[in-house]
C-alpha cells in the first residue's frame, strides 16, 4: 500500500471518530467507548507491527501496556510528577523493557519467542500483586485507585470534561498511528520485512538483525507504554486484572479483524471490534461465544481482514487506471 493511501485511511478513520462527539458528546457512556477505541487502536496496531509486519511472535504486548500504565501511575502518585511527564517516562521505561525482553528472543525461532514473551505476561501479574510490586507501589491485588488525571497548564483532562479529553487522546492516538506509518514506510520498514522474509538473505545484504529486531521491540513497546500511561490517567484506576486473558484475546481479535500485518488495518479493527462488542452487550453471557464464532467466520472468510478487502479494491483500481 502506498504512503498516501495509508495516510488517507488513517485520517479518514480518525476523522470519522472526531465528528462523533458532535452527536454523542453529552453521553458519557458512549464517549468512554470512543476513548477506548482510541486507546486499543494504538495497542493493537503496535502489536500488529511487531507480530504481523515484522513477523516476531511477541505475546508480551498486554504486559508492556500494563507496565507503561503502572509506571506512569506510580510515578505520578508517589513522586507527584505531572502525568504529562510520567507518560513520556513510561514510554521510555517500557521501551527499555521491550529491549530487555527482545534480547533473549533474538536467537530464538518463532514459537519460542511466543513462549518467552508470554512468560513475561504470565510473570507480571504475580509480580505486581506480590511483595516486590507492593514495594514498588503497585497497590498489590487491590491495584491503584487514585491516579491523578492529565493536566496541562492547569487544565485537567478527566471524565468530568470528557469531550476535550477525547480530543486530547485522539491527538495522542493519531500521533502514534502516524509514527507507525512513518516507520513501516521508511527504510526501517524495509529492513523489518526483509528480516521476516529471509533472515540469511537480509543479513547478507547488510541488514543487522540485532539492531532492527531490537528496534521493533523498542518502538512498539514505547508507543504501547505511552498509551498505557494515558489509559491509567484517564481511568484513574488500574488493576492486575488487565492481565487476565480477556484483554489479550480481544486485542488479538482487533488485529485479525483489521488484517494481520496489514497496517493500518488494526486501527479500523479496533474501532469495529469495540463497537461490535458494545452492540453485543445485550447478549450477556453469550457475548463471548458469539464473538468467538464471528472470529472463526472472519478468519475463514477474510483472512486479511478489512484491510485485505480494501487493498484488493485499491489494487484493482490501480490496475484499471
Amino acid at each position, binding site marked *: 500500500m502506498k504512503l498516501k493511501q495509508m495516510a488517507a485511511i488513517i485520517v479518514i478513520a480518525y476523522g470519522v471518530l472526531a465528528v462523533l462527539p458532535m452527536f454523542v458528546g453529552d453521553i458519557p457512556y458512549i464517549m468512554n467507548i470512543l476513548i477506548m477505541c482510541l486507546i486499543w487502536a494504538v495497542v493493537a496496531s503496535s502489536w500488529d507491527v511487531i507480530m504481523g509486519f515484522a513477523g516476531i511472535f511477541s505475546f508480551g504486548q498486554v504486559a508492556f501496556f500494563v507496565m507503561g500504565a503502572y509506571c506512569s501511575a506510580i510515578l505520578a502518585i508517589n513522586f507527584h510528577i505531572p502525568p504529562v511527564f510520567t507518560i513520556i517516562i513510561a514510554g521510555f521505561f517500557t521501551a527499555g523493557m521491550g529491549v530487555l525482553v527482545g534480547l533473549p528472543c533474538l536467537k530464538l525461532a518463532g514459537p519460542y519467542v511466543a513462549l518467552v514473551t508470554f512468560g513475561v505476561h504470565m510473570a507480571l501479574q504475580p509480580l505486581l500483586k506480590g511483595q516486590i510490586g507492593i514495594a514498588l507501589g503497585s497497590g498489590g491485588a487491590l491495584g491503584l485507585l487514585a491516579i491523578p488525571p492529565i493536566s496541562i497548564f492547569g487544565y485537567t483532562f478527566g471524565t468530568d470534561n470528557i469531550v476535550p479529553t477525547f480530543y486530547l487522546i485522539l491527538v495522542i492516538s493519531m500521533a502514534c498511528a502516524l509514527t507507525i506509518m512513518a516507520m513501516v514506510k521508511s*527504510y526501517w520498514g*524495509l*529492513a523489518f520485512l526483509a528480516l521476516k522474509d529471509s533472515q*540469511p*538473505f537480509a543479513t547478507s*545484504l*547488510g541488514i543487522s538483525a540485532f539492531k532492527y529486531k531490537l528496534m521493533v521491540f523498542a518502538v512498539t513497546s514505547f508507543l504501547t507504554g505511552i498509551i498505557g500511561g494515558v489509559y491509567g490517567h484517564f481511568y484513574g484506576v488500574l488493576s492486575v486484572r488487565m492481565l487476565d486473558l480477556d484483554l489479550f484475546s480481544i486485542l488479538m481479535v482487533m488485529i485479525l479483524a483489521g488484517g494481520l500485518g496489514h497496517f493500518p488495518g488494526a486501527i479500523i479493527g479496533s474501532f469495529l471490534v469495540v463497537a461490535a462488542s458494545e452492540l453485543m452487550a445485550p447478549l450477556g453471557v453469550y457475548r463471548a461465544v458469539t464473538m468467538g464464532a464471528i472470529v472463526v467466520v472472519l478468519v475463514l472468510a477474510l483472512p486479511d481482514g478489512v484491510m485485505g478487502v480494501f487493498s484488493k479494491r485499491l489494487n484493482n483500481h490501480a490496475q484499471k487506471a
Partner: protein
Amino acid sequence: MLKLSNVTKRFGALIAVNNLSFEVSQGQVFGIAGPNGAGKSTVYNLITGFYDFEGSIRFDGKEISGMKPHQIAQLGISRTFQIPQTFPSLTVEQSLEVGNRFGNRAKHDARRIERIIDFVELQSERHEFTGTLNLLGKKKLMIGAALATDPKILMLDEPMAGSNAHEIKALMELIQRMNQELGITIIIIEHFMKVLTELTETLLIIETGTEICCGDPEVVTSDPRVIECYLGGDDD
C-alpha cells in the same frame, strides 16, 4: 584479496571443513567444486559470517572471523544462496533497494538500482513481488540484490543448478560481464565442469572438507585424484 588459512568447521562430530587454506586474488574468477556434502556451501557460510570456525579468514588483509554477516556484507563481500532466497513481501525494485540501502555506506542511489535492473535484465519484473518470480528470475534477483551492495567479491553458490542450456549460457555471460565490466572478483561453486573450465582461472576441488587439489582448471580436471573423487562420490 581473500585468504583462508587453516580453516576448520565442526558440526558436532562432523568435520564439514577440514584445515582448508586457499587464496583468491583480485579480479579472478575462482571456482570451487566437489561432490555433494563436500563442504562447499559451508565454506561460503564461514566467509560470510554465518558460523564461527577455527582458523583465519582475511579480506584485504583484515581478519574477518567473528564479524557478523551484515558487517561482512558492508565490507564488500556479497553472496547468493544455493536454495534461492527472496523477499516475498518486497518487489524486485525494493529488494535491490535493500542491498543498496544497507549493503554499502554510501547513500541510497536510485540510478544505481536502475542500472542493476538493466544489467540483470529484470526490467519487466521490477514491480513484481519476488516470491512470484520463476527460478531464473529468483537467481537474477539474488545477483541483482548482491550487486546493489556494490561488492568487491561476489560468491555464487551453484548458480546454474536447475537451468537449461539456454539459461546457463545467459548466466555465464552475466558472470563474465560482472567480472570484466564491473571488475568484481567472482567465486563460483558449480557442479558443471564445463562451466568451470570455461569461466574460471583457478579451480579448487574439495572432498569431505579437505582440499584435493587447486590450480589451473584444465590441469585440475584431468588430475587422477579428482577423477577418482568424482567417480567414487558420484552416486546421485
